[in-house]
């Protein structure tokens, strides 16, 4: 048994069944066992309908598991949400257009009852981290998609939660912006030491960012493989062109195709 206090996320036998016992019953998650260590970066990857977003939503207490145990930072998802032990970012930046960029970042702090001055100070600090200090008093729609997503990330970090939950946050961005955002995220992770659960359907993205890639498959949604990515902590543009990166990408791709050959590709990582 893993010690729940040492883990950011611990799922044991988690099931999520929609319309259970009724017409149109759908098993979105089947018997999920998963651990995310504190400080670890884990990606959930799989085709649409594999339940990766549902799994993230169970962790976030946006929906409840039908069966099984889920522990987030040592407590139930519900408690974790109430204590704001996680921050969340979505594919859409979901900024409030009537608020300035700074006041969007302040939102979670406002809900927790922080004073105006402290809120402002913290928001400016975060905007500096995502390199948007000059845009603090702009309106969200004056920013590009990538910039808006950086604001959303700053907002998810506002209460300084130990865990970040990200649901395809770069999914709507163009390839160049996306790679830049990935570098940003890795830098923020190095600076803050957050545990991160990251949902994506991009194999290179999952490999570049993660310590481990959880591969899922649909109908019913389940974990088919967990691929470790031993690329080390310091990753940069060169990493994307390295053999190890290529082998890890192949390993994840094979796992997604349900091929045992994944193990072979995995063995090649670090061989050179």
């Amino acid at each position, binding site marked *: 048994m893993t010690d729940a206090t040492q883990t950011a996320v611990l799922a044991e036998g988690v099931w999520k069944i929609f319309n259970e016992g009724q017409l149109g019953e759908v098993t979105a998650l089947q018997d999920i066992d998963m651990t995310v260590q504190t400080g670890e970066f884990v990606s959930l990857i799989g085709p649409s309908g594999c339940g990766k977003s549902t799994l993230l939503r169970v962790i976030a207490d946006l929906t409840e598991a039908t069966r099984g145990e889920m522990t987030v930072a040592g407590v139930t998802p519900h408690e974790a949400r*109430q204590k704001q032990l996680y921050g969340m970012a*979505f*594919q*859409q930046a*979901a900024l409030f257009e009537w608020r300035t960029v700074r006041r969007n970042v302040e939102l979670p702090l406002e*809900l927790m009852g922080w004073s105006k001055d402290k809120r402002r100070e913290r928001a400016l600090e975060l905007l500096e981290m995502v390199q948007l200090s000059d845009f603090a008093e702009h*309106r969200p*729609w004056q920013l590009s998609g990538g910039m808006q997503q950086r604001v959303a990330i700053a907002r998810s970090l506002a209460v300084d939660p130990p865990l970040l*939950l990200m649901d395809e946050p770069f999914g709507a961005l163009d390839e160049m912006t996306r790679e830049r955002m990935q570098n940003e995220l890795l830098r923020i992770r190095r600076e803050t030491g957050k545990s991160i659960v990251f949902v994506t359907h991009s194999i290179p993205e999952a490999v570049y960012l993660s310590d481990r890639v959880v591969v899922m498959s649909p109908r019913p949604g389940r974990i088919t493989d967990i691929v470790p990515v031993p690329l080390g902590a310091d990753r940069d543009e060169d990493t994307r062109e390295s053999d190890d990166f290529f082998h890890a990408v192949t390993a994840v791709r094979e796992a997604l195709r349900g091929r045992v050959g994944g193990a072979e590709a995995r063995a090649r990582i670090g061989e050179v």
Partner: protein
Amino acid sequence: MTDRLRFIWPPILIGVLVLAAWQAIVVVQDIQPYLLPAPSLIAQNFFGDVSLMWGTAIYTATTAFLGLVLGTIVGVIMAFLAQRFIVVNNLITPLAAGLAAVPIIALTPILNNMFSITSRTPRVLVTMIIVFFPMLVNVTRGLVQVQPVQLELMRSMNAKPRTVLRILRVPNAIPFFFTGLKIAAPLSVIAALVAEYFGGPQEGLGSRIASSAANTAYGRAWAYVVAAIITGLVFYLVTIALERWTTPWADRSRSA
């Protein structure tokens, strides 16, 4: 600035040309005032007694304003209830739709009998009922139509329904509120004016248009029509000014 001038000049030019053509046709064809009075005659009547025009317009504008404010208040309150309680929503929607189908102006004689015909009350009530519907529909939509992802975000931040209302739904509804008000404001002037055709105090625009026409004072009747147009326009422009002042974030859609 030159851009702005480019927008302003064409309509003014067209307006002047139309008035000139109108004047020319009336003079050349010798058209009688009961068919179509010349712009000069209308202007003569309008500027001949500006204080009377002003006082008459103010009377109708007051009715319209009272109806607009009361109808807006009731509409907004109902919208909040509709958002909060699905039962109320299910109750209100067909009711409101039914109300919209009633020829409300036609209720004026009945309301005149129910409430004192010598008072402003029946007219304010008619205006209020007409204003209520666009306000209810638009504000409800604004409160309900928030992005699902924004609701999820609020939930992830552990926000209670009341907080979601204050932080998300109400600000989201403000542009919708103004959409409703931009429809309701000119409508309130029309309602207040038409309600005057069914008897009661005679100092409003509707009454004066009717009596001037009945007395063959066509130039005067038309001058009151001009005053009515100006009144409606003022209501609309004030609404737009209010909107720009209170929702600076919506600049994007307006500048586009």
